[in-house]
């Protein structure tokens, strides 16, 4: 890989990194795993004068679960860390699964979940499930300014986010899964599983008294940013989630999607796959709620 020249800064604290970013405003980029950023530089789409490497900032390297508050994923938690984390696998299996469907083993050993979000590809594998689970991201700026944003509002376009030029994503927070709830992630590419997702769907369902109490459906790679399929969600609430309801919801999601045709797939195929994957994800999530509660849920 032939890269343009850049200076590399290796701060050891977040404060140092933020100060560097403020000092080199507009001329610096923050790098965690580098698997997306270096590619953009190799293709000369980006040529920052300074790369601010986060790797030595140990305070950003964590995955933490707080029983009252939920899950916190630090900016340096790699995709493979999330795939292998025992608590994420137990309490947030769909989030671990989405991380496991991201790229290849080697990339997962390098890239981070936060980086996958900050790169803001419409097909980022980790976004749909995290949005469906109500994740927020913490963005910090110079002078320790911090703000929390719903992940759903973080993406502003392909490759564009709500991050201000002087901000760094410190962490991702996912609330505790509500009782009687489950999430699921489904993705597909037109070629192999290591190829970039052509369509992805993350869902979150809550079940009460045998009926769907709450539903979130998030579609990836079929709009400029990951999108909620709100009409498809509305079809589910209050129903018993039989096969017809799930099929109708999938078809509604396909109508709500705004896919384009590109090198990976046609818009028509993408729309059909939205219907299929939504139905599969809904079935998977609903079944896993039932099995987690011995088939009887009464909350």
């Amino acid at each position, binding site marked *: 890989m032939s890269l343009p020249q850049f200076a590399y800064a290796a701060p050891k604290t977040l404060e*140092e990194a933020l100060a560097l970013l403020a000092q080199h405003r507009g001329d610096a980029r923050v790098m965690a795993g580098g698997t997306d950023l270096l590619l953009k530089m190799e293709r000369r789409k980006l040529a920052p004068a300074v790369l601010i490497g986060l790797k030595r900032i140990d305070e950003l390297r964590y995955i933490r679960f707080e029983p009252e508050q939920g899950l916190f994923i630090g900016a340096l938690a790699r995709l493979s860390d999330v795939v292998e984390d025992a608590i994420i696998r137990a309490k947030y299996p769909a989030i671990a699964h989405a991380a496991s469907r991201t790229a290849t083993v*080697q990339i997962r050993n390098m890239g981070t979940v936060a980086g996958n979000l900050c790169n803001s590809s419409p097909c980022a594998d980790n976004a749909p499930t995290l949005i469906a689970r109500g994740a927020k991201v913490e963005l910090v700026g110079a002078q320790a300014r911090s703000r929390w944003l719903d992940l759903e509002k973080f993406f502003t376009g392909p490759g564009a986010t709500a991050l201000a030029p002087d901000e760094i994503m410190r962490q991702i927070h996912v609330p505790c899964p509500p009782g009687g709830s489950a999430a699921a992630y489904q993705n597909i590419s037109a070629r192999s599983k290591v190829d970039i997702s052509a369509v992805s769907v993350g869902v979150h369902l809550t079940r009460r008294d045998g009926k769907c109490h709450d539903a979130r459906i998030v579609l990836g790679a079929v709009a400029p940013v990951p999108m909620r399929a709100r009409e498809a969600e509305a079809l589910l609430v209050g129903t018993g989630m039989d096969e017809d309801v799930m099929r109708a919801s999938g078809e509604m999601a396909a109508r709500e999607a705004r896919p384009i045709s590109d090198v990976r797939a046609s818009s028509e195929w993408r729309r059909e796959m939205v219907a299929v994957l939504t139905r599969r994800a809904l079935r998977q999530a609903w079944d896993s709620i039932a099995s987690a509660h011995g088939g009887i849920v009464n909350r």
Partner: protein
Amino acid sequence: MSTHGDDEKGGVSRRGFLGGVAGFIGVTAVGSTAEATPVPKAEIYEASGLSKLTLQVNGRTHSLLVEPRWTLLYVLRDRLGLTGTKPGCERGECGACTVLFDGVTRYSCMTLALEAEGHEITTIEGIMAGEALGPVQQSFADEDAFQCGYCTPGQIVAVEGLLRQNASPSIDEVREGVSGNLCRCGAYGHIFKAAMRAAAMKQVS
């Protein structure tokens, strides 16, 4: 521009330390500098200069001068002469450049050399058993797990990394473990067999 620190004679500059950032920071630095004043200083590797770097590769320590933009792949092959690691796509897709980084597989084509400092790098040359082939290499030979052989060092290192994480993988785990390594000859069937054989050999030895 971003960098300062003085170029030393011969065009070789040392790593600079960035000062002048204290105005942004109201807290004490936790860095490793043992100065009286609590001014945080991030280590800076200058864009056009060469910075001194120490790399641990296959159990040996190498001191060399690098530019920030040099990849680990370039340094291994062109500076250290370890040409077993292959350049392929050079954009993190084909896996020919796979090395172990603290025992874990990664693409050396998209790893900056200076980010490898402080980590133990293992290349295909480092998984020999002295002058003899290591178990994964021997298994690839025994199973005829290659045709042109170009992807083979990367495949072997990927399998080595897999087996260090998971000593007795299932065939599906093997498929997953080498899914980041492309073989355009299509020797996959034999590669999977070689990986299973290597797992068995390692268990015995």
